[in-house]
């Protein structure tokens, strides 16, 4: 098999907030190093950071402190977060936002007096979220993208990473194997340091929000490379994904949180409000509670025609709604729905993946030369990510990774040679579909998405998950028998659909097994057979690792390095919340 | 020729301006040549001006003044939208330019007959 070989000093996978920030910081910390950024789509035009609507959490608002942000993060994560990571996230977010404003050129909305505007996302005790209208991610990524494009950073666009290739002794990472999607050729890139920032992305669910390029490739690669993955059962669902039928990619995309906050009502198939049957806060309860409420209502056969519920805004006055949620109303209108005056069908949708590779607060992993940041890294959010902590996490840790890699490569004299056997094996793995008879891949993806949604979704039971595990494994086995038309490998999307399925099946198995291992309900993970959150003092997180052909899932005790359950680091006289009730 | 991405008033205004500009540029040497006749052979100039009574020539002249007016108004419109900050009214301006041109050339036409 002919493959191209290529060398660099620092290699970055992905161009979300984590990848782009890493490139900028790596350049600052190692100005003479050759930096290469490789991405599955176009630079800056894929991934989820661009899709951030609500905003960025940073303790810069009146009265707010890093301590308060930290406490909210820990409580929101139900005491499961790695506290050192959560602390750094909150502390460095302050620096990162100033960097975004002053060096990168972002402009976040201002108050009338010219200071930064902060809003309060659900689950927070201060007005903390900075934003640019409801298109915050576009502002952040566009500005970062410009900075990276204008610097001497090598770009490998439409390059899909398919394997982390270690050295022969397995002690360190040699480089990464890619498919150059435009030509269909393989390319192996050696580097002294590699940042994996491919952004997770729970797109194995029937309804999901992330961009189409995100299919858990990074975590699947890490799993194969033998790295430990934590919190893999933690899949966050957003309660209001658009529901427009299975045949359209619009289905699953987010209708923003603010709609419920502003008084939007959820109605079941019979046009009745139902959220108060489940929670005293009604539609304004937290994401996980509302998602479960909707799911329960759907199970009672109270569903709308496409099998979800409705969101209705009309009682707030169509003109008001159209004005306040201009972007959202226009998006719905483009798709043929009247959000301002009518009702729109919605369904909970898989939004964010809290789980990821085990890293330390400097983004280092168990494998020398490999760093992980952003949604691919586990730990910062525990069982639940607060709205606004997602971009904060990817930009903070992307920057940290850039700093640390720049420093670390100073101590690496030479590029490491790969284990050629692993390289061969990874190539062979990617070529499997070309040796089978071509068939449709998509029906199998649908099966996988149904299985995960039905059996490992919003509400889970041991029986359901056992069934789900079996389904996922069968689907994974079926995939190996499905072929792809190999007339041309150049821009062969169907080949990539196949590879996407491979990653999704592998990680779905881990999610399911981790979820079976957690016998309580925390944050995003809800077990109908274990509805209690369990003892906080003895909180544990799950760690999954490949063991031979199977998986090894263990529980590890959470280290309360900064604060213990029931305690706080806020001064005694600090009020519970700084947010005025609406 | 008029592909879908071009079918809007501003593009029409552009193409009209360009065509009128070219037509004027082509006409101008002829115009200069005719006037130069005044010096070399005034009688031939008179003979030429006589033609201007013929309807076809009248229409041609009308077209010319029309072009001049169109180009003038189009040009003023352009400079206005480039240099004066009144962007939302551009389309109105485009239409207005054509309107005024018609008015000027119409007057000319009426006078001529």
């Amino acid at each position, binding site marked *: 098999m002919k493959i191209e070989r290529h060398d660099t000093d620092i290699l970055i996978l992905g161009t979300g907030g984590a990848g782009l920030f890493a490139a900028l910081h790596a350049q600052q910390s190692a100005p003479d190093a050759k930096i290469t950024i490789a991405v599955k789509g176009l630079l800056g035009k894929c991934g989820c950071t661009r899709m951030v609507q609500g905003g960025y959490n940073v303790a810069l608002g009146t009265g707010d402190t890093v301590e308060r942000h930290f406490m909210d993060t820990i409580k929101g994560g139900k005491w499961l977060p790695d506290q050192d990571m959560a602390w750094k996230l909150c502390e460095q977010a302050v620096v990162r936002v100033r960097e975004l404003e002053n060096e990168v050129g972002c402009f976040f909305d201002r108050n009338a007096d010219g200071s930064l505007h902060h809003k309060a996302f659900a689950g927070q005790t201060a007005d903390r979220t900075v934003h640019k209208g409801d298109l915050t991610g576009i502002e952040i990524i566009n500005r970062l993208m410009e900075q990276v494009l204008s610097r001497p950073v090598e770009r490998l666009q439409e390059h899909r990473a398919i394997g982390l290739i270690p050295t022969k002794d397995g002690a360190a990472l040699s480089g990464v194997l890619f498919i150059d999607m435009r030509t269909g050729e393989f390319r192996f890139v050696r580097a002294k340091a590699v940042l994996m920032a491919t952004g997770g992305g729970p797109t194995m669910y029937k309804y999901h929000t992330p961009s189409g390029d995100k299919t858990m490739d990074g975590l699947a690669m890490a799993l194969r490379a033998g790295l430990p993955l934590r919190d893999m059962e933690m899949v966050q669902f957003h309660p209001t994904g658009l529901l427009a039928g299975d045949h359209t990619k619009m289905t699953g995309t987010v209708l923003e949180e603010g709609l419920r906050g502003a008084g939007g009502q959820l109605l079941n198939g019979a046009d009745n409000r139902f959220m108060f049957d489940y929670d005293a806060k009604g539609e304004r309860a937290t994401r996980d509670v509302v998602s479960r409420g909707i799911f329960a209502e759907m199970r009672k056969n109270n569903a709308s025609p496409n099998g979800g519920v409705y969101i209705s805004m009309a009682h707030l006055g169509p003109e008001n709604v159209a004005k306040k949620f201009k972007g959202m109303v226009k998006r719905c209108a483009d798709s*043929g729905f009247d959000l301002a005056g009518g009702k729109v069908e919605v369904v909970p949708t898989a939004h964010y993946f809290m789980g990821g590779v085990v890293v330390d607060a400097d983004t280092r992993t168990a494998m020398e030369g490999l760093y992980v940041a952003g949604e691919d890294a586990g730990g910062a959010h525990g069982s639940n990510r607060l709205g606004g902590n997602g971009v904060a996490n990817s930009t903070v840790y992307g920057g940290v990774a850039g700093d640390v890699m720049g420093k670390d490569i100073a101590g690496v004299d030479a590029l490491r040679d790969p284990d050629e056997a692993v390289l061969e094996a990874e190539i062979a793995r990617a070529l499997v579909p070309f040796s089978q008879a071509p068939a449709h891949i998509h029906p199998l993806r649908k099966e996988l998405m149904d299985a995960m949604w039905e059996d490992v979704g919003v509400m889970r039971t041991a029986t359901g998950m056992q069934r789900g595990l079996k389904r996922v494994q069968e689907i994974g086995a079926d995939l190996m028998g499905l072929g792809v038309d190999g007339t041309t490998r150049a821009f062969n*999307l169907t080949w990539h659909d196949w590879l996407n399925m491979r990653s999704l099946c592998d990680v779905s198995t881990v999610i399911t097994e981790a979820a079976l291992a957690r016998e309580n309900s925390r944050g995003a993970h809800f077990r109908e057979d274990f509805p209690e959150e369990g003892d906080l003092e003895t909180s544990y997180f799950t760690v999954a690792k490949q063991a031979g052909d199977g998986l090894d899932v263990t529980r590890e005790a959470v280290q309360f390095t900064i604060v213990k359950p029931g305690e706080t680091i806020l001064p005694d006289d600090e009020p519970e919340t700084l947010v005025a009730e609406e | 020729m008029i592909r879908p*991405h071009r079918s809007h008033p501003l593009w029409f205004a552009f193409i009209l301006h360009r065509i009128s500009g070219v037509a004027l540029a082509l006409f101008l040497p002829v115009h200069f040549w005719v006037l130069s006749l005044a010096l070399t052979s005034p009688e031939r100039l008179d003979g030429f001006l006589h033609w201007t009574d013929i309807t076809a020539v009248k229409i041609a002249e009308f077209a010319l003044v029309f072009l001049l007016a169109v180009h003038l108004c189009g040009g003023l419109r352009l400079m206005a939208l480039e240099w004066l900050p009144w962007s939302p009214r551009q389309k109105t301006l485009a239409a207005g330019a054509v309107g005024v041109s018609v008015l000027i050339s119409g007057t000319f036409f009426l006078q001529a007959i």
Partner: protein
Amino acid sequence: MTSTAKTLDVSVWRSNDTGGAFQAFAVPIQESQTILDVVAWIQQNEDPTLAYRFACRVGMCGSCAMMVNGKPRWTCRTHVQKVISGNKIEIAPLRNLPVIKDLATDMDPFFDKWVKAEGVFHPSKTRDDAIEQIDPTSHERTEADIGIECINCSICYAACDAVSTTEDYLGPAALNRAWTLFNDAKDSGKQTILDAVSANGGCHSCHSMGSCAEACPNELNPMASIAGLKRETAKAFFARRKS
């Protein structure tokens, strides 16, 4: 495959290194269906080798733009029923950019020009400084806000005939970005920007055809931004003569 009573008559541009042609497909009509859904349906059900590009599917990433019945559009947010003529849809790759394969274009020239137009923030402060107080209602800020929500989809670039005829013309999106930055109180590169857009292929290559503003899916008006640049370059032209 599906034996739906009604189907769309879709013609899709297919190409490789050697050339290209339109190919016809019959695609079942669905109630909520975007152009992107049509393209994906063909790839998933009829011809697995069809190449195209998308990411966000909600009009944020600007990677799914194509020519639809002759007009450049974002396909993920273009409802089939809104653009259909009779029963026909013609889908081609975006104009004015090199085609990689089928419906996927190489967007690098577009971004190279973005950088060449100095569409890159020129900082004057660092992460150690406080965030600048900026009056959101000031004239400069409102002018900057008007053009800021560009998703670099290249739709305006594809619509513009000046781009087709003038090879090094920076194009509407890059210039719109330059204008936004020019109005950004935090940007310290005003003169750099003016120099960049005054060079050959800069804002003076625009003939105010307005197709950019007409086509922009986000209702931005690059033509007005370019006019702003022309105004400022003209001012600078006289100012420099005087001094």
